[in-house]
């Protein structure tokens, strides 16, 4: 039994750390917020102070409380959208790749069409017709975003399924008479795990961007606090023009951190899928200890053997796949 383990490179560790931090914030954010984010009885436009860590808005609301509350809606919608989109991508991608023929033509055409239509304008058209009540519903917003974001994953999964379908083990299951459904779910799907994970992270990343963008142009309910709504109000009150950086910079930095964390984890998965990238990820320090020159020679990919290298390098290589 293969044990799948992500490379324990600093990049991945930092990424996982960031995501854990924000996941915790998603749960406890509203509890630890010092004030009600919608209470507007404070003095207006206060600069950051001990009482208001990030100051107050032009309406007299506490910005730090809004930031803490905003994590939940932002991450919830992104995760819902990411999961739904990956599920659609799995169904479409694996069926297209495995069934082939007419089914493949149809499903590929479908995903190509969704890839070619620019996502944001489509999202805006769909969202602008949603009734106000639905614009505060994380589930519905997540579904709408998923609808515009599944196609990339489907394409990647289809390609990988096509390369798997003619392998011996799939051939063997076909011969012993396993059903198509079983082959697709039990034989093929587990082998797509790294790609599925990478596609899930990628869609969550896309969904955060999409949700925040919708909120920023005022297409989500303004009664639900999320990081995009905060920037919508900051922009509407000309915060950038009057140097109120503490109003719009914190939500932007949070979005960027969550996104960068996801991308860093994705690097780990990429290196896991493509061994050449993994070796490129070895730092110069590790290479020097192994007695290799820092400058990688042309046309030669350094492969360090576990037996011939000192213990530390051994460990750093274990960071890769463990069989």
């Amino acid at each position, binding site marked *: 039994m293969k044990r799948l383990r992500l490379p324990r490179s600093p990049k991945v560790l930092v990424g996982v750390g960031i995501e854990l931090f924000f996941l915790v914030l998603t749960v406890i954010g509203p509890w630890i917020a010092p004030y009600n984010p919608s209470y507007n009885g404070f003095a207006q436009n206060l600069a950051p102070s001990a009482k208001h860590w990030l100051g107050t808005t032009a309406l007299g609301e506490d910005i730090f409380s809004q930031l803490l509350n905003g994590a939940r809606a932002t991450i919830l919608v992104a995760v819902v959208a990411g999961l739904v989109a990956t599920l659609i991508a799995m169904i479409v991608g694996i069926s297209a790749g495995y069934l082939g023929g007419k089914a493949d033509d149809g499903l590929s*055409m479908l995903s190509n069409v969704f890839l070619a*239509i620019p*996502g*944001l304008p*489509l999202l805006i058209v769909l969202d602008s*017709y949603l*009734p106000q009540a639905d614009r505060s519903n994380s589930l519905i917003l997540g579904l709408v975003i998923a609808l515009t974001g599944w196609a990339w994953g489907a394409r990647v999964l289809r390609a990988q399924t096509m390369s798997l379908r003619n392998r011996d083990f799939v051939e063997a299951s076909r011969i012993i008479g396993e059903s198509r459904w079983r082959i697709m779910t039990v034989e093929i799907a587990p082998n797509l795990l790294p790609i599925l994970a990478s596609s899930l992270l990628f869609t969550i990343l896309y969904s955060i961007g999409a949700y925040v963008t919708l909120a*920023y142009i005022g297409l989500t309910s303004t009664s639900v606090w999320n990081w995009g709504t905060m920037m919508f109000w900051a922009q509407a009150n000309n915060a950038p023009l009057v*140097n109120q950086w503490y109003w719009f910079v914190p939500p*932007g930095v949070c979005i960027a951190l969550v996104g960068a964390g996801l991308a860093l984890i994705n690097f780990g998965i990429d290196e896991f899928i493509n061994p050449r990238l993994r070796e490129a990820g070895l730092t110069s320090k590790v290479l020097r200890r192994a007695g290799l020159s820092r400058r990688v020679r042309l046309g030669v990919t350094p492969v360090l053997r576990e037996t011939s290298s000192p213990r530390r390098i051994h460990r750093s290589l274990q960071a890769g796949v463990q069989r």
Partner: protein
Amino acid sequence: MRVIGRRLALYVVTAWVAITVNFVIPRLMPGNPIQTMIGKLTNQVTPQEIQAIRSAFGVGLSQNWFTQYWHYLGQLVHGNLGVSITLSTPVTTVLGNAIPWTVGLIGVATVVSFVLGTVSGALLGWTRGSSLDNLIPVATFFQAVPYFFLGTVAFLIFSNHLGWFPGQGAYNLSLTPGFHWSYIASVLRYGELPAFTIILSSIAGWMLGMRNMMITTVGEDYVLMAVAKGLPRRRVIWHAARNAVLPSIANLSLAIGLVVSGALLVELVFNYPGVGDLLFHAVSNEDYPLIQGIFLVITLCVLAANFLADLVYFSLDPRTRTAAVV
């Protein structure tokens, strides 16, 4: 040629889907926002205009969907996208004023970003494992920042605080638009910071993609062969980079939509009088004819750009001319 035909067919189908989505969505969505909109409008517009809106969105019509759809397609063929409610101007006229700004800004920025990103990605891939790799997390961070946020920060620092760049807008409003040097210089000057923002946000994607392909390519036998033949280093890099760039160009047509979507919001931050700014205006005033017109036009433009990118790809990769690899 067959491959080009297939791509073209895909884009035609996609355009048809976009057109049909535009027709179906207003008729399917719950709560009937169009009825509400007409209710609000009764005092502002003439009965004929209300009738036009009704027929465009299928509210209170006795015809069946098929007849409505046929009528809708007929209007499109004649280039009629309806009348913007808030601006009381045909949508085509409104868009005609905005599109040149957007195409100029986003088009130039995307091309510059692709070229710079690909070249630097090739060099990063070549010098993998060196200290230059520290650029990657930085690039990742910029990739994760929403374009509009980066634009806001850039505006705050470079324009508002340091005064290196002019303020919002597309040109100095005291100048009369026309074909003279001071106006053109002003347009270029005002475009610098928005373009810089778009380049900074989108360059990381090209860079990382190219770096990863380059690392894979450098391990190929023909690169080793090139080194063994004693070719100068620069020739070898060129040799590898030419092969590594193909997937980047193949992805170009997929990424254009994403880049354009993000860049539209940069216009919003800088009050740039392009399609993005118009879209915000339309959304915040619930101007449905304008929203739909913008969606359709952006989609068609992106599809045209995709097709151009495909043509470049096909002319570069000889394999696509013989086999139907898409």
